[in-house]
């Protein structure tokens, strides 16, 4: 039927529309010209060479990676016990069950405009004397990554039947031993997926970082933002292509670990 055909065509066009920015960037990064054009002219790796040998680009790249790794690590450490409490314990405050309220609070950074945190954290860090420091950037990124780690951990913990942990305790394991030997291994894939997500969200973040970055401590997306307004030559596309490759690597790792269902579990 012609309607079905048209619908199929539409769907393909839309998938293409979603992907087109990535195609353009990767394509342009191999150009030989001095300015950005699409379709690109010729084929060369000179922009990659230029970027990979540039101290400032590489510094920003590694800075972003380290910020992402450290904030991911802290997020895991604080989220593991909290997710366990929220998924498996009754949390009360002054005799009232506050489990749901706390969960809403902890996950709310997902819906509150990030720009609010960006400015708020900048003020907080200035008050604490941590503005323009590495720990300051990590604190800022915590609020970006914790909700995602926490959410996937809560979902994983809730998927573990209480009877499994009870059996371990009945057989004489301490609660702590039960957690590390039984609960945590069963939640492993959720933990890995949540962490990789956290890494990516931190690595690509612009909105919070832009209010925290200072010269000399500029994460990769902010350096790209600054470069864009001054030069905008194809080296930006080369950086972006490397960025895309890294992001896709992490993404495929998540995907092979998880499949779609648990990636977007709420």
């Amino acid at each position, binding site marked *: 039927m012609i309607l079905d055909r048209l619908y199929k065509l539409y769907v393909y066009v839309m998938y293409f529309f979603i992907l087109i*920015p*990535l195609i353009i960037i990767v394509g342009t990064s191999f150009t030989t010209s001095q300015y950005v054009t699409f379709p690109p002219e010729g084929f060369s790796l000179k922009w990659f060479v230029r970027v990979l040998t540039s101290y400032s680009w590489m510094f920003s790249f590694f800075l972003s990676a380290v910020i992402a790794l450290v904030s991911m690590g802290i997020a895991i450490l604080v989220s593991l*016990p909290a997710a366990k409490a929220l998924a498996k*314990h009754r*949390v009360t405050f002054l005799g009232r069950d506050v489990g749901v309220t706390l969960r809403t609070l902890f996950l709310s950074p997902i819906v509150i405009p990030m720009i609010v945190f960006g400015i708020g954290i900048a003020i907080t860090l200035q008050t604490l004397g941590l503005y323009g420091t590495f720990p300051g950037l990590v604190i800022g990124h915590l609020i970006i990554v914790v909700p995602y780690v926490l959410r996937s951990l809560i979902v994983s913990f809730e998927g573990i039947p209480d009877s499994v942990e009870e059996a371990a305790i009945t057989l004489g394991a301490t609660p702590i031993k039960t957690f590390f030997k039984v609960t945590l291994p069963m939640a492993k894939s959720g933990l890995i997926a949540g962490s990789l997500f956290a890494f990516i969200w931190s690595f690509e973040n612009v909105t919070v970082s832009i209010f925290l970055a200072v010269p000399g401590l500029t994460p990769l*997306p902010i350096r790209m933002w600054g470069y864009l307004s001054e030069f905008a030559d194809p080296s930006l596309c080369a950086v972006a292509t490397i960025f895309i490759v890294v992001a896709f690597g992490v993404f495929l790792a998540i995907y092979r670990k998880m499949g*779609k269902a648990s990636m*977007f579990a709420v």
Partner: protein
Amino acid sequence: MGALTTRRAGALLLSPLLVCYAVAFIAPIVLLFITSFVVGRGYYQPGTSLTTEHYVHVFTDSFYQKVLLNTLAMGVYTTCLTLLLGYPLAYHHARASSKTKGLLTILVISPMFVSLVVRGYAWSIMLSDHGVVNNLLMWFGIINEPVRLLNTMKAVVVGMVNVMLPFMVLPISSAVESINPHIEESAYVLGAGKLYTFFKVIFPLSLPGVIAGTVMTFAITMSSFVMPALLGGPGFQVFGTIIYNRILLISNWPVGAAMAFILVAIVVLVMYFQERLLSVLTKRRRLT
């Protein structure tokens, strides 16, 4: 284990996260809120006096009113277009076989993993006067000379729709997925046409997903500043770009903070209506 020990354990287990949120979530929001009332241009420091003039200024000054209208227009255009374009895609995604669905999910969400700066830059290349879009339109003979796309609202909306599609497609897809395919089949068997079945059966049942996607899209679009700045040009001003400008370029913290809180208020209001709408919908379904 008694009930008391588990309760204590709960509090103990939550305390590291609570400390993190106190520093990185509650303190920033409280300080930002106080800053929006500070006299002068600095951020809050103990001892500074407070005023509501920044809110009054933002609400009464014609410049800010224009910016607010522009922001709302960007939010509404983007949300409507994303819903219109995204729904058919979400339906296709939901009804795909489980094998292809994996690949399609990767396609839909992969751009989310690339920084907004990169995607904005790509669109600015495509939408420039001699970019791909203009060249294609001329090649097809739709236009004779390049039209100005970059630095207009059109460019911003195109870029934002591109960014927001995954946020719209995924919730709708999972809502459609949860509709039993037999319901659709029985509608056909009973003689309903495709379009009739869609509007009378599928669309109403997928409304929770539609509302979730719409609210998410609207909230994120309203507070965005990367796409508006890269694609709208210097003349295009929305809340996001003005906040960026006030804080980072002319360091007028109180006005930026007040604008940020107005954004939060709009988002909270929209989410409140979403909640109400959803509860009305579920109640009605229970009655019928």
